[in-house]
């Protein structure tokens, strides 16, 4: 197992370097001169300034290799430079305060999605073409097609404005400081309900679909037949033998869909004014705060990479065949 994990780790390193390559390439996207490029912008002045700063910061007049070397050197020291915003704080610090919020949101989302998608997929697969299966299939198609920002707006109208049940902005109420400890916790949870509802909606559709598919394939296998033939109850056959095998591909899909989930926080955080990395990214793009943009891009990609690595290792842990084949490959 250790070998398998190490192997995955080593395979990850080139991707890490690749991330720096792509991000470095993005900096050099800007074609032409800054002023005429931004001529149509309202903030042409400020973006010309930003570009000047950018040129100084990354030494854009030096040869590419030198630029890249310098940039990489700073990255290695976790130095992302200072924000172009008036506060001019270090980018790492800015991102650091927002990272926990985004991480927490995404982890909670993921847990809810898996907790709901597994039973939903399992039931629709074992009762294929039943009313439940048909209803969830409709839900899946609608879930795929619903724009998350629209769902967020509708929920804000319903629960925030019309019913007045839930807060629709930020993570804390204005009078948070004056609340008792438990009220504070409740207030926090209340602020999270709508964003998490919106963020899980689309993902849930996808995952329950995969789970159903995977389960359908598993229950047609011979070993399920033999488990039945052995006289095991349907409960044990489905709940133990089938479920375990059906959940394996889910681990991979989990890893693959992480970038999408994390990317989704851009819209959710912007709408609900949640101070996470997604909101920071949007603000930075509007303000042309390039160091923050680049820092965000690199950190988000590295996070996804780490999450993928964890998913791979988890896959190896639950499925012995994977780590065995890994060993076979080395021989």
């Amino acid at each position, binding site marked *: 197992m250790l070998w398998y994990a190490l192997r995955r780790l080593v395979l990850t390193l080139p991707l890490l370097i690749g991330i720096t390559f*792509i991000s470095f390439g993005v900096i050099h*996207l800007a074609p032409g001169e800054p002023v005429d490029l931004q001529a149509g912008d309202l903030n042409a002045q400020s973006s010309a300034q930003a570009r000047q700063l950018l040129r100084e910061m990354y030494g854009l007049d030096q040869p590419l290799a030198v630029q890249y070397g310098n940039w990489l050197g700073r990255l290695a020291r976790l130095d992302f430079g200072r924000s172009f915003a008036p506060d001019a704080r270090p980018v790492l610090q800015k991102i650091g305060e927002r990272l926990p919020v985004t991480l927490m949101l995404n982890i909670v989302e993921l847990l809810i999605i898996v907790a709901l998608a597994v039973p939903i997929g399992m039931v629709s697969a074992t009762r294929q073409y039943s009313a439940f299966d048909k209803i969830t299939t409709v839900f899946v198609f609608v879930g795929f097609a619903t*724009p998350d*920002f629209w769902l967020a707006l509708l929920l804000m109208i319903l629960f925030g404005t019309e019913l007045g049940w839930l807060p629709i902005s930020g993570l804390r109420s204005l009078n948070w400081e004056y609340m008792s400890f438990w009220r504070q916790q409740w207030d926090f949870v209340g602020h999270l309900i709508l964003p998490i509802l919106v963020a899980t909606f689309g993902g849930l559709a996808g995952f329950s679909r995969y789970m159903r598919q995977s389960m359908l394939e598993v229950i047609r296998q011979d070993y399920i037949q033999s488990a039945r033939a052995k006289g095991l109850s349907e409960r044990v056959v489905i709940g133990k033998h089938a479920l375990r095998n059906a959940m394996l591909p889910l681990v991979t899909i989990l890893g693959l869909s992480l970038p999408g989930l994390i990317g989704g926080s851009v819209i959710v955080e912007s709408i609900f004014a949640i101070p996470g990395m997604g909101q920071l990214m949007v603000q930075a*793009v509007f303000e042309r705060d390039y160091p923050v943009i680049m820092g965000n891009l690199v950190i*988000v990609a590295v996070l*996804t990479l780490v999450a993928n690595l964890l998913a791979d290792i988890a896959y190896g842990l639950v499925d012995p065949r994977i780590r065995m084949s890994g060993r076979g490959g080395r021989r």
Partner: protein
Amino acid sequence: MRDFWQAFAKNRLAVVGGLIVLSLVLLAVLAPVLAPSDPNRPNLRNMLGEPSRGHPLGTDQLGRDVFSRMLYGARVSLAVGFVSVGIATAIGIVLGSLAGYNGGVVDATIMRLVDLLLVFPRFFLLLAVLAFLRPSIWTIMAVIGLTGWMGVTRLVRAEFLALKEREFVLWSQAVGATGFRVVWRHILPNAMAPVLVAMTLGIPAAILTESGLSFLGLGVQPPFATWGNILNEGKDAIEIAWWLSFYPGLAILITVLSYNLLGEGIRDALDPRLRQSRRRLAASRG
């Protein structure tokens, strides 16, 4: 081909999806004829007007007719969907064929690049790129296309790996056809079915991405109407003018849903294995 149409026609949802897609295309093309008023003409006497006979979907902050704006918005969605998926598919076919046909170092390099780009959360990458460019419908199309070719590449490569060992390919190689000819005349045509499905399913994804970007205010810029930026303007008036937020979102939902139904229908109709198992299942149930 007849098999395909028969199987497709049996799938009622897919047919409905296809018909809606067709009518959306018609609506978009005929927008200048159908729109009751100029989508960009403000009318300060009728700002945030409720849906009425003259304005079936109401008016916005500047008194512009929402229905007309949405018709023009359909053009943007359609154009972005088709062009960006066209770009992504073209790149995907070229790189996927190169990787699948050549194997070896070429394959390894291209596939690592695919892995690499898939590590970037799409929206963060899109925003980072857009921060350096001036947002316009062309940049949006290009950027969505250029960041969305990885799936098609994988798909085409997988098809090539399966097809290049088949007799008709080996035979044409044996009689001395050039690599390009083998790929172009013999392998690609046989690999197009899954690509077609991927394209049909890629269009709604691109439409969702564009409307998301426009909703954030980083996509197609006003005064050009798109469903996303109508929603963006609508969200500020959400408490007094629900129609500004409701209808564009509904239009996106219906569009994406129809493309998805159509795409899944095409896939099911193309996949004989699936068709057979379904038939067997139906037989065992009946």
